[in-house]
């Protein structure tokens, strides 16, 4: 397990003592605790400090954990740092707001040792992957003297330019918070960039991410009449979770997305990058009695978009 410097923020000193005890017993000993959002921001702004992971209580007086998360994301050094929210059952409904503010995951309060161990292991895996990539990028950069972003076609990288877009893992974690009843009242729909492989091969990492961000913005616009969250799932595929059970017209959505993207046609021609073309899958819903899992709902949505592409 790679060392991880953790900052925990909670207004209850007993909870912080308990958290320190639990984290230390599972091997996380590099922990700093503070009692308010203001103290946390002061620490984070001081560049002498550096944290790998933040644990934020949602329900705090003055500055809530959600507001703190939003402010943390505006700090350049903490744009991508994993943020895990700590939430009591009564604040579970606010978790959607936390994901929108940039949180990656959540744990329940009272804290369960097994749950927090699992969540922090996932954070550790994410950090290991980022360190590995940073090392490769630094090597490429020093060999060629160019800034480089090393991504794979399969990778579900986060898109930060579009406000309703969150990381894929965060979208999965958000859907898991919903429970069976609320998941039943949601709609999942996937979008596939038909020529994503061609785009990937014709540009560098930065160009590919920018192109996918343009697609995300077009998808966001097409879904503007719904409350929704979007994530890039890798392989040129996007998933949107809509906060209501609804039917969608895939062709109407496709037209709206294409109209938006056509505005970039000349730019893409100049850059020698194919203009993205998007297929939309059928809306997918969870069954109430069949206990549809989040992963199967998302898989079904993506497969539907792939079928739409094959039929095109």
């Amino acid at each position, binding site marked *: 397990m790679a060392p991880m410097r953790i900052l925990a923020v909670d207004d209850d000193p*007993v909870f912080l*003592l308990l958290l320190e005890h639990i984290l230390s017993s599972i091997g996380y000993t590099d922990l700093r605790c503070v009692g308010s959002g203001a103290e946390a921001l002061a620490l984070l702004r001081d560049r002498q400090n550096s944290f790998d992971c933040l644990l934020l209580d949602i329900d705090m007086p003055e500055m809530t954990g959600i507001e703190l998360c939003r402010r943390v994301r505006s700090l350049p050094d903490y744009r991508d740092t994993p943020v895990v929210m700590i939430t009591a059952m009564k604040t579970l409904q606010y978790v959607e707001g936390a994901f929108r503010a940039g949180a990656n995951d959540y744990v329940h309060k009272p804290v369960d040792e097994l749950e927090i161990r699992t969540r922090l292991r996932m954070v550790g895996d994410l950090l290991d992957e980022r360190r590995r990539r940073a090392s490769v990028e630094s090597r490429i950069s020093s060999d060629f003297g160019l800034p480089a972003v090393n991504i794979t076609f399969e990778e579900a990288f986060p898109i930060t330019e579009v406000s309703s877009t969150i990381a894929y893992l965060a979208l999965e974690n958000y859907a898991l918070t919903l429970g069976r009843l609320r998941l039943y009242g949601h709609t999942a729909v996937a979008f596939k960039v038909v020529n994503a492989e061609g785009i990937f091969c014709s540009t560098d990492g930065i160009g590919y991410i920018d192109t996918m961000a343009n697609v995300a913005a077009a998808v966001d616009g097409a879904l503007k009449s719904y409350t929704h969250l979007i994530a890039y799932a890798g392989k040129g595929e996007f998933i949107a979770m809509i906060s209501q059970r609804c039917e969608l017209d895939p062709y109407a959505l496709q037209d709206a997305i294409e109209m938006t993207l056509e505005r970039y046609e000349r730019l893409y021609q100049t850059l020698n990058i194919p203009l993205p073309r998007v297929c939309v899958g059928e809306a997918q819903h969870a069954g109430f009695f069949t206990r549809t899992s989040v992963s199967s709902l998302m898989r079904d949505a993506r497969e539907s978009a792939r079928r739409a592409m094959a039929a095109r």
Partner: protein
Amino acid sequence: MSMSETPGHSATTTRPDPLGAIRQRFLALADSYSVEIEILMEDAADPAQTAEALGEVGAIAHRVAGVAATLGFERLGDLAARLDRQLTEARRQGALSVDSHDGLIREFHAAMEDLLERGRR
């Protein structure tokens, strides 16, 4: 755990209790929470102060709910979580009244007093 919540004091266990110090800190806070609740309930009887006083009771319940069960005080934690949820919901609906929550607040307060009494013995 039933009314007799006494974690860390098993007759058959001689190993030091790793949570002992945190539990003592919690009990010290619970002592002041108990007094605060009594005062807040007197304040809540005044309609002009009801919302603020019950909000403070809810904040205490929220803090207790976050740690009690992990420290071995499951019943207190359960009552605190129920009270926290109930008061949050009532506040959201703009329907905070002493009568609606008096029973649960008394039960929560009694459980805390019971715990403190056992700690003093």
